């Protein structure tokens, strides 16, 4: 099977789906001639023309809002927000409108559209470009939120997202575009939305993560293995739908849990993971869950980002603490 980087896998999915379904359009800033600032859409305009691959004006709200109109008209837009941090500019379109079109119109209209947006740090990008604001979008009922961690998943989840009849916010790990590489089948396949993935099996502690942080969790698992601790790594893949069953299973297996994310601690999605475990698997817990996250501060300038983003050592240290906790 060919090995692809994540950005190649994403591009591959877009090619395939534009070929298969002529309702698919790709719109966004610099997605056409340039092929995207990270080349995720490279070659698409050449192949599918300027009508289907559209360089949009610099205006996130109308990129999202017109995507909704396109979807209502019968198209299947894949809209790129150049960086998730600029998703705030489109928030009033995404939460109250895109997510609710089906509901508000009592099923007459739908919003089968995908918003792609890269996020996350450690690649020395300017301010705002790295902000991990995924949790802010979780409370937008009607919206699904997809967070691939591997190239394989990026392709399969993106194909599933575009085909999904509900709107999807598809968040791509910026630093994974070139760094994440794995085997990706050539043709068509989908990965079901809402099914978590066991990235690594283990028995002593579960590390729950998503997107680029899964790799870091696996590195932490390596460190833990050196100390004789067997870590189970659960890649959520989607924040919505959340795979509650997979979480419960993992918690029951290990009794001890760490959640890791790139966003600040307070009100990060880690809080929901803990609350969900409290709801569904409280008695399986043998120790408090530990959150390993950024501090409650903005994503900083590049010079100090290495202090900010959780690394494998911090995750491993927290996991060790959790494992060693005696109630």
């Amino acid at each position, binding site marked *: 099977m060919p090995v692809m980087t994540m950005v190649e896998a994403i591009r591959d999915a877009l090619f395939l789906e534009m070929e298969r379904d002529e309702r698919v*359009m790709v719109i966004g800033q610099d997605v056409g001639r340039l092929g995207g600032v990270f080349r995720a859409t490279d070659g698409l305009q050449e192949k599918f023309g300027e*009508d289907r691959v*559209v360089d*949009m*004006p610099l*205006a996130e*709200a*109308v990129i*999202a*809002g*017109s*995507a*909704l*109109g*396109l*979807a*209502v*008209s*019968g*198209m299947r*837009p894949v809209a790129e927000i150049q960086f998730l941090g600029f998703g705030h500019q489109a928030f*009033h*379109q995404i939460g*109250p*409108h895109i997510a*609710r079109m*089906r*509901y*508000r*119109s*009592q*099923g*007459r*209209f*739908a919003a089968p559209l995908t918003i792609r947006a890269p996020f996350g740090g450690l690649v020395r990008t300017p301010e705002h470009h790295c902000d991990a604001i995924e949790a802010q979008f979780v409370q937008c*009922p*009607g919206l*699904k939120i997809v967070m691939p961690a591997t190239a394989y998943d990026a392709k399969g989840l993106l194909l599933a997202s575009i085909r*999904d*009849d*509900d709107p999807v916010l598809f968040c791509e790990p910026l630093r994974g575009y070139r760094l994440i590489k794995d085997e990706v089948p050539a043709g068509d396949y989908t990965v079901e939305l*809402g099914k978590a993935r066991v990235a690594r099996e283990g028995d002593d502690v579960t590390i729950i993560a998503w997107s680029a942080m899964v790799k870091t969790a696996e590195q932490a698992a390596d460190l833990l293995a050196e100390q004789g601790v067997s870590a189970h790594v659960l890649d959520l893949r989607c924040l*919505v*739908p*959340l795979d*509650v*069953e997979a979480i419960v299973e993992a918690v029951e297996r290990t009794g001890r849990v760490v959640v890791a994310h790139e966003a600040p601690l307070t009100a990060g999605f880690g809080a929901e993971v803990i609350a969900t475990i409290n709801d569904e698997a409280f008695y399986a817990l043998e120790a408090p869950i530990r959150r390993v996250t950024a501090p409650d501060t903005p994503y900083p300038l590049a010079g100090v980002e290495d202090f900010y983003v959780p690394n494998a050592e911090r995750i491993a240290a927290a996991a060790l603490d959790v494992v060693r906790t005696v109630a």
Partner: protein
Amino acid sequence: MVTLEPQFSPTDGAAEPYTVLLPDGTLRDGATPSMSDDEVVEALRLMLLTRTFDDKAFRMQRQGRFGTFSQVRGQEAAVTGSAAALDPRRDWVVPQYRELPALLRQGLPLKQFILYFTGNPAGGGVPEGVNCLPLNIALAAQVPHAVGLGWGLRQQGSDAVVITYFGDGASSEGDVHEALNLAGIVKAPVVFFLSNNGWAISTPRSKQSAARTLASRAIGYGMPGVVVDGNDLLAVHEVTAQAVRRARAGEGPTLIEAITYRTGPHNTADDPTRYVNDEELKHWQQLDPIDRVRRYLTARGRWNEEIEAEVDAQNKAIVDEAFAEAAAHPAVHADQLFAHLYHQFPSRVSRQRAEFAAHS
């Protein structure tokens, strides 16, 4: 040093609104009406119907039997004249919330509108075949939707045109700018119909913008801009029909500003006596758009008191029946919190749905 005067000056935005039908019901010199007498009669019936509805719904609201809503009072010509320029079978209406005549003409059952304002989620539904988007309360958010809708229809080979309505207040939102700009670029077949009714709740047009006219903004998006007397059914129809033709022919969008006036309160929760000037209100009441059409049709022998009485009786019956239908609609139930939210529900939401069903 004073050689380089700005090329663009605020006064470049000044314009006299177009008129065809004068307040006394006669045609402006040299004007030919763009609507047949039959069409005007049809329009007047619709304008009267919505006024009948506005009156009844307002009374019902006061009795606690209807929700907070905004009347179209005073703006009937602007909404009706523009909607009359559409072909309801292929063209689309993307409304704000004060455009009942346009929705009715597109075929929305009045019952749906009533259900919506009695707070029944079913009221958000738009029957298959009716080319309207749901009402939009979050101001200006609908304007980008209209652009995408028009663009997408054209992309699929249709010659449909989309009209979207928004207020002078809504025009200040960033969404309107972004949408007008995109429409200019992709030549979306969209008519942007700005109902300048003088107010955004208590904020007068003069505090909404220093622009002489809001239609002058069209220049900055590379599209034509028109200012029209919004209380003049025929002028509104004519400029909208032209814009629709341009859009249908692939020549792109138009921004129309209809100068009209909200002669009622902003909505049933509002007390305009706190801010509306009496003189100004009286002035505009005298320019009532319905009276004008009545005079016109009367002079042409197409309207008289009998017809008025008959239409009034019919309209009352239509409105009463719609309220009755709405009242007969199945009672609201908790499952409506969930219905239609997803095509494929996340299991957690399905579980909540089952729990709510069990508890109510």
